[in-house]
């Protein structure tokens, strides 16, 4: 059943250690295709760690040990024939703090294209079209079309975060991972990013880590609750918040700990 194509991401008995500390304990989740799934839980429960497993970014740090199986779109990402470059191309990630590169807005958006093509393979007009498409999709085109050559690090935080999402789109990712994408933003910025998530839903599978219970409730279709490195509950959002199956979930969403 783990191969059911309806699931974008499935994990089986996933364990992860930071040196001696076990951060993930026997995680089994099935994340559905094309919807927004949020990972919630108190600080240090392993939700960000889990998210970072899905594009194997944890491995950059040598003290991390991972065991178990992670399948993305039916393919085990630990298979020896998996290329990290191709994996990360299909699994984009948005970080807590917007991290535009210190180059122009234009170059930020085409960065991925340049990385994945031999130079001169893509013409100027291809790149221009890709920039317009990606920026339109995240709703930045109107504001930024006349200053594409400005440095991206000078934008407002909200625009920076949208740009970071736009940077992923030209690579045609299938999964977008978001690690507390709104925690550096104000109310307006948060709403803008959430609206963008709804826009992107359906075309991309979105997994979002959030500390903000209200955001999980507003912006996700399904919720996964984690505690102390363990998987506790996975339900449709409406159900989890109204009718939690596990008493620990109930305590958390009522705000007894956090």
């Amino acid at each position: 059943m783990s191969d059911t194509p309806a699931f974008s991401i499935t994990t089986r008995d996933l364990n992860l250690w930071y040196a001696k500390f076990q951060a993930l304990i026997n995680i089994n989740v099935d994340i559905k295709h094309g919807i927004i799934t949020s990972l919630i839980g108190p600080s240090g429960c392993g939700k960000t760690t889990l998210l970072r497993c899905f594009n194997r970014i944890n491995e950059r740090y040598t003290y991390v040990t991972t065991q178990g199986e992670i399948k993305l779109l039916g393919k085990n990402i630990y298979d020896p024939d998996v290329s990290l470059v191709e994996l990360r191309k299909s699994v984009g990630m948005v970080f807590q703090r917007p991290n535009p590169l210190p180059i122009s807005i234009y170059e930020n958006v085409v960065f991925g294209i340049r990385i994945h093509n031999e130079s001169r393979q893509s013409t100027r007009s291809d790149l221009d079209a890709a920039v317009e498409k990606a920026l339109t999709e995240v709703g930045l085109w109107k504001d930024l079309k006349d200053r594409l050559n400005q440095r991206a690090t000078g934008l407002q935080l909200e625009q920076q975060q949208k740009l970071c999402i736009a940077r992923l789109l030209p690579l045609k990712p299938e999964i977008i991972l978001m690690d507390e994408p709104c925690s550096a933003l104000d109310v307006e910025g948060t709403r803008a990013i959430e609206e963008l998530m709804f826009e992107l839903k359906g075309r991309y599978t979105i997994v979002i880590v959030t500390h903000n219970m209200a955001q999980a409730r507003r912006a996700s279709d399904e919720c996964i609750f984690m505690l102390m490195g363990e998987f506790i509950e996975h339900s449709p959002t409406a159900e989890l918040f109204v009718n939690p199956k596990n008493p620990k979930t109930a305590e958390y969403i009522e705000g007894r700990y956090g």
Partner: protein
Amino acid sequence: MNSPRIPSATTGTESGSASRFTATPFVRKKERREAAAKWIFFSMAAAMVLPLLWLVSYIVVRAMPSLSLDFLLDPPLRGMTEGGIWPALVGTIYLIVVALAISTPIGVLAAIYLNEYARENWFHRVISMAVINLAGVPSIVHALFGLGAFVYAAQFGYSVISAALTLAIMTMPVVITSTREALASVPRSFREACWNVGATRWQTIKAVVLPNSVGGILTGIILEVSRTAGETAPIMFTGAVFYKAVERGDFFPYQLNDQCMALSMHLFALSTQVPGVKPSLPFATAVILLGVVLAVNATSITLRVWLRNRKKW
């Protein structure tokens, strides 16, 4: 909620409010100590400047009679007792350029490997240990090593190349350390941004890490120049000589396998080895050596300031 112990602002008597906020004897004592402490620290800091001013002005004043363009361009004359320093100046520049041409590529590439590729394991630790210990080896020991390894074993003889290789080995650890610092100052989030669109490490280095650290790397290398310029022992053992006949203003007097003159060596020779030297000559030589070092350092500082103002994140 009004506590009776809090004095009321409005009912305070004339005399009561007059003594409010004024210093007590204890406070005045503390203030005197504070002032004394501040003056002691300040005077010590000021005293730091004194030796530098004294040293530089003493040398410049003593050098005055000899300082001129001719001094710069002329070779030493009449058994080194008069004339200029051209061969030594060119020799020093030669040694610096050749030494850096060897140590910079090796040092920078090694630093990139250590900082961007190497995993935390025994091999990495061995290299780091080697770098740290190499930096602590006294220059006279490097000199002896250069003599044995390059002059005799590799049969380069006493030559520019032997001396430059010795200097290169001396400067390499510092180049590696400063380059690693420059690389490490590039925020991790930039690297993660690159990895997340599937960039390889080399693409990440090319696109993001190097452009944002090149200033720091250059600064480190330039500062190395000033250290290299002043070294005497390593070149004395391996390729620098007291005297070499060179035409006035000749820019290319030495081959790689020639011996050469150098400013630091020349200064040593004039001050201790040659009888009857015009007294201002050694001081003038020192001024030129200082000038070279200060000019290089000034360039490095300017470059660093300029690059820092340019990067915004």
